[in-house]
């Protein structure tokens, strides 16, 4: 029982990270219909920025704000400067640009901060660990039915729920959210009724990258370190969540992200056949099966294909 609860909580906490990455993917997909392969690396870069802020002695809240701003700018600039001009050419060009962005951001992070795992006191890090949003000392946990539930896990899950709630309010209760939904449902008509589609798309990408930033910072916090390969697998889990939830459903992305976190944790823990090495196969199989059987995902709207 304790073990089950432990795995459930751990699954929910990593699932929260997947949900945040998936949310970013979904917001971009709803806006421009693109799959942003650089989502993980955008998050990685701003996670490094937050690390640097911590290095300069800024409190975590302030560091996170700067990280969010950097993430937002990266996303917005990527949309305006790169994706928008290229999307007129072909979907393939957009795909290549997102892959190029993936490589560029990963390299840039490596060029600035080096390719070792940080914080690393050996290479002059001031900090002992990655700036954590939540109390993360070894004794920071509560015991529930024998399972040690870390404050960090509770915090990560809670934060994801808060962000989801805020997004819900943004989408449903604000004028800008209405504009975003209008663009998602029909860009041409949205233009005709006077919505500034370009601004909406720019903000969508910025918002997606900023949400990704939180995912990256939280994941680096769970890992207690940040390194160049940090987001590779997280991106796959995130895309699995977006696929399962439906690429145009933010709520679906969050639910699916949490589901995948839990399934993955349980599968690795209880099914010896899978083990820790093949955890990623869970994500792979989810993507494959959903795309084969129900491409619109659990909560997405089915796409009508015209010939």
């Amino acid at each position, binding site marked *: 029982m304790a073990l089950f609860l432990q795995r459930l909580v751990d699954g929910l906490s990593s699932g929260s990270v997947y949900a945040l990455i998936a949310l970013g993917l979904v917001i971009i997909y709803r806006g421009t219909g*693109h*799959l942003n*392969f650089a989502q993980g690396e955008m998050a990685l870069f701003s996670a490094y920025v937050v690390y640097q802020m911590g290095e300069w002695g800024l409190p975590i809240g302030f560091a996170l704000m700067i990280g969010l701003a950097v993430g937002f700018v990266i996303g917005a600039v990527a949309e305006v400067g*790169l994706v928008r*001009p*290229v999307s007129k*050419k*072909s*979907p*393939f*060009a957009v*795909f*290549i*640009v997102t*892959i*190029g*962005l*993936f*490589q*560029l951001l*990963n*390299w*840039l992070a*490596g*060029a*600035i*901060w*080096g*390719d070792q795992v940080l914080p690393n006191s050996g290479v002059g890090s001031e900090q002992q660990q990655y700036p954590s949003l939540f109390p993360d000392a070894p004794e920071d946990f509560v015991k529930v039915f024998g399972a040690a539930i870390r404050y960090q896990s509770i915090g990560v899950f809670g934060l994801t729920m808060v962000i989801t709630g805020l997004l819900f309010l943004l989408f449903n209760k604000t004028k800008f959210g209405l504009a975003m939904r209008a663009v998602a449902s029909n860009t041409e008509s949205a233009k005709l009724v006077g919505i500034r589609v370009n601004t909406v798309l720019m903000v969508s990408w910025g918002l997606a990258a900023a949400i990704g930033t939180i995912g990256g910072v939280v994941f680096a916090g769970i890992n207690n370190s940040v390194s160049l390969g940090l987001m*590779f*697998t997280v991106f*796959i889990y995130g*895309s*699995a969540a977006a*696929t399962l939830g439906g690429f145009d459903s933010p709520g679906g992305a969050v639910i699916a992200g949490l589901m995948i976190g839990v399934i993955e944790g349980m599968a690795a823990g209880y099914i010896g*056949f899978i*083990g820790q*090495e*093949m*955890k*990623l*196969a869970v*994500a*792979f199989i989810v*993507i*494959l099966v959903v*795309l*084969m059987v129900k*491409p619109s995902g659990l909560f997405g709207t089915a796409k009508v294909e015209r*010939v």
Partner: protein
Amino acid sequence: MKSLFTIKDGSAAHWALRLLAAAIVVAIMLWIPTKGSNGLVTSATEALTLMSAAMALNLILGYTGQISIGHSAFYGTGAYVTAILVSKYEWSPWLTFPVAFVIAFVVGVLVSFPASRIKGVYLALVTLALALVFPNLLRWPKLESLTGGGPGLPNSDSALDTTGFDIGRREGQMRNFEIFGWDPFGDLRGQGAIPFYYWIAAGIAIIVYIVIRGVVKSRAGRSLIAVRDNETAAAVMGVNLVATKAFAFGISAGLCALPGSVTAIRLGSMSPDVATLTILGSLTFLIVMVIGGAGSLWGPVIGAALYVIVTDRTGNWADEEAIPGLLRPFFGWSKIPPGTGIFAVTLIALMFVAPRGLVGVWKQYSPRIVRVVPRPAGLAAATKPVLAAVDTNTTPEGESE
């Protein structure tokens, strides 16, 4: 648009041009292992394996239009098939090539079935997941008896004598490469094993090129291009989508396994950490192919040569002192070699200026010097003004100066 020379397809001048191009390629290929330094030969070997893999990827991405970032898995399949057969079952490395091809072919066909339902970037997502799962599969304890798990298949000294896996690295160790007692590479031992690997890689690159050229120029190749350009239209014209994709994926995966086998032979050991077996390998193949030119036969060749030249030159640039003075302000701040960054920027920039890569640029501007007028397709077409038709087709867009 004016061109200096206009020659007809199939004329003597055209053949002379073709022979000249072939002679240059042959001369370069012979010059490298005979006159080049060992470092150059090693780089050329890397370029040859890389271009074979990129050519294989080109068949599926450039010609069939199916986005794959999972080719490192096929590459790795080839590498591991060779490594396992040679080190555990003491096969001759020669015989592992066809086996690697067949196994990767089957894997490719299996991947093609979801691909016939999943389209565009979603397929990219699936193949990306495949590329990330593959190294974990190699580490999987259930397969450890075969793959050696995390450490992989090491090149331990005890295995040397019995398996001959460390082929040609020392004198008298090449017996596994003898064909009925005749060692075709005997004369190359002068410079040690390095040119030997070069020739294996070159042979594989030539085979891959010939197969892909054969496929692309045949009926099958035209149906691939039809699928790329418009899937629905292709199906209406009578192209069997499932069979065509299965064929393309199978051949592409099989061919991609061959350079993997070469790498296994060259390194003499294999582990899941070898970079070309991970997602980085897939991205490298993609970069090589797109920079050279997707959907062209020579694109991957040029892309691979360029890639290896740049990464070799900039490989030690993490050390600021190694950067040539003029470039130091640009790259001096970087803590890692700038190769990846340079290629990322190039990749993005190419999508703006030349989506068809360097070969595309060449095709756009080479008619200014030499224009080859295609032969008319039939008698009826011959009466039409062929030249005028070609002019309108090949005149590039931004052609105002």
